[in-house]
């Protein structure tokens, strides 16, 4: 089914507002990415540099040798002369290295979780604040339109400072003002007609009625 008629061709319909929102979203994402990057970079790099420093490796080599000796003493494996046994320190070091990588990543993940949580909360609060600039006016306009639908043309469309849709609300306010004016003039003419019906000549009566009709004809009710 072709729906070309309804397809929106220009997505940049309100450049000012859209750029502002794009900037806000990008800023939030940058902030979160920056924090993630910093935590991961310093968490992983810092720990990895320290874990594999010459000093630490020397300590680990000594400990690997000690662990091998402890095992030999406890399990009596010293005399088992397999090739694998000759390089058990290397195996210990390798296993310890793998475990270190795992712990570094695990710690970084935990660190990230603890750091990212407050940022998520800040972003959530900011998004509520930002969306309120849209949701607030929409809600206000909806209420006013509902009020107008029930005949109350005094309902205003005034928005708060910083709200979006200021132009739209201005137009709606203007529209309501015109409606009020047209209806007021019509009502005044009819009021005068009713009040002075006995004193007015037929021509004057006709003139007043036509004035009211002219004002009401402003509203197009038929296609």
């Amino acid at each position: 089914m072709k729906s070309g008629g309804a397809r929106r061709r220009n997505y940049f319909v309100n450049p000012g507002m859209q750029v502002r929102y794009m900037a806000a979203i990008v800023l939030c994402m940058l902030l979160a990415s920056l924090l993630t990057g910093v935590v991961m970079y310093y968490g992983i790099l810092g720990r990895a540099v320290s874990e594999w420093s010459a000093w630490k490796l020397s300590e680990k080599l000594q400990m690997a040798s000690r662990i091998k000796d402890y095992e030999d003493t406890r399990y009596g494996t010293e005399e088992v002369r397999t090739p694998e046994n000759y390089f058990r320190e290397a195996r210990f070091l390798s296993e310890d290295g793998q475990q270190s990588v795992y712990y570094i990543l695990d710690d970084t993940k935990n660190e990230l979780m603890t750091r990212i949580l407050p940022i998520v909360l800040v972003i959530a609060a900011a998004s509520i604040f930002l969306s309120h600039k849209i949701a607030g006016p929409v809600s206000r306009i909806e209420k006013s339109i509902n009020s107008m639908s029930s005949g109350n043309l005094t309902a205003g469309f005034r928005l708060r400072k910083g709200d979006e849709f200021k132009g739209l609300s201005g137009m709606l306010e203007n529209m309501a003002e015109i409606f009020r004016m047209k209806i007021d003039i019509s009502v005044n003419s009819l009021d005068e007609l009713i009040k002075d019906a006995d004193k007015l000549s037929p021509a004057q009566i006709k003139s007043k009625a036509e004035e009211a009709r002219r004002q009401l004809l402003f509203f197009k009710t038929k296609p």
Partner: protein
Amino acid sequence: MKTIVALVLVLSVVSYPAACLYAGNGGTAQDEFVDKIEKDTFRYFWENADPDTGLIADNASAGAPCSIAATGFGLAVICIGHSRGWITYDEAYNRVFRTLKTFRNTLKNEHGFYYHFVDMKTGRRVWKSELSSIDSAIFFAGALFAAQYFKGTELERLANSLYLRADWKWMTNGTSLLCMGWTPENGFLGSYWDWYNEGLIAYILAIGSPTYPIPAECWKAWRKPVGEYGGYKVVYSFFGSLFTYQFAHAWVDFRNIEDNGINYWQNSINAVHANRKFCIDNARSHKGYGEDGWGLTAGDGPGGYKGYGAMPAEKLIQDGTINPYGMAASMPFVPELSLKSLKKIYDRHGSSVYGEYGFKAGYNIDKNWFSSNYIGIDQGVTVLMIENYRTGMVWENFMRNQCVKSWMELCGFTVKAP
């Protein structure tokens, strides 16, 4: 008159062993020496622990992980430090309590057992070490001792709860012996505690457990080979290392316990004498051996950590290395010999063998090698045995544990009158 004389005689005989053993508090030069060793060695545990977790380092070298056995010894050593007035009640209580809380809240356990080596700060398993039955047992022994020392406190309940979690039955892997350990990667290790050695303490705690006990018959399942050296008959361990005759004795007072004709206390005395005789007999081969150079036991040597030992043994490893804790932890067995020899090597080698935390890990005169390190479990058994020699305080507290009484009862041991 005859009755009074007889009574005095009997009392003298009965009190003789105690008077002999509980010495070292009299202010003589020897007493001061004993006090110095015990206090300096205590400092290893006070200073080589993580202040937040309470976990104690395997050895004094930089980057050493925590050994749960060293931590177990440390729990008792901290209590001894308080009883001797080196630290306050609050300091001792808080340190021990913090350590136990680390075991409850931070360390990973499997069926209540812990990994041999863990990170000092995070408590995570390191070196892919095994879940160790003996090292867990030594930790439990320390916790149970602390439970008695701080009886009636929250610490007592916490310590007991950690011991009660251990599923000893699981650790037998369906056999009648305790397995040495388990890893998540390969399951149960292929080695079992099947000889007379330090594993005794694990069997005692396993049989006496009120929650997950193993049958008392398991006590009979491990080998008790008898050998002789220099006229001394010994139920010996595989390597003949002296620590195998000391570790369980640091906690359990075997003096009056008879196991089908075996008195493990006397057995350890014989093992110490045999060890010393072996060193005297081999003094020509190794310069460090002799009347005051003995105590061959597992420890650091010029070629790394080895299971040094003396006859009788199934397999002998010796290269002239002496690990002084072998002599120090023999103090309750042979007080005079132990003190004389320790004083001799202290005077002869000074700071080469003795430092800030007591006697160092080892030395080898043949190779002019002197260790600068200290090993946690060596220092631990040293403090406990010195304290047992001086007051019997560790035995007295540890023997009050219900699990020890249950073990004796279930194994049907007769308690010989002192």
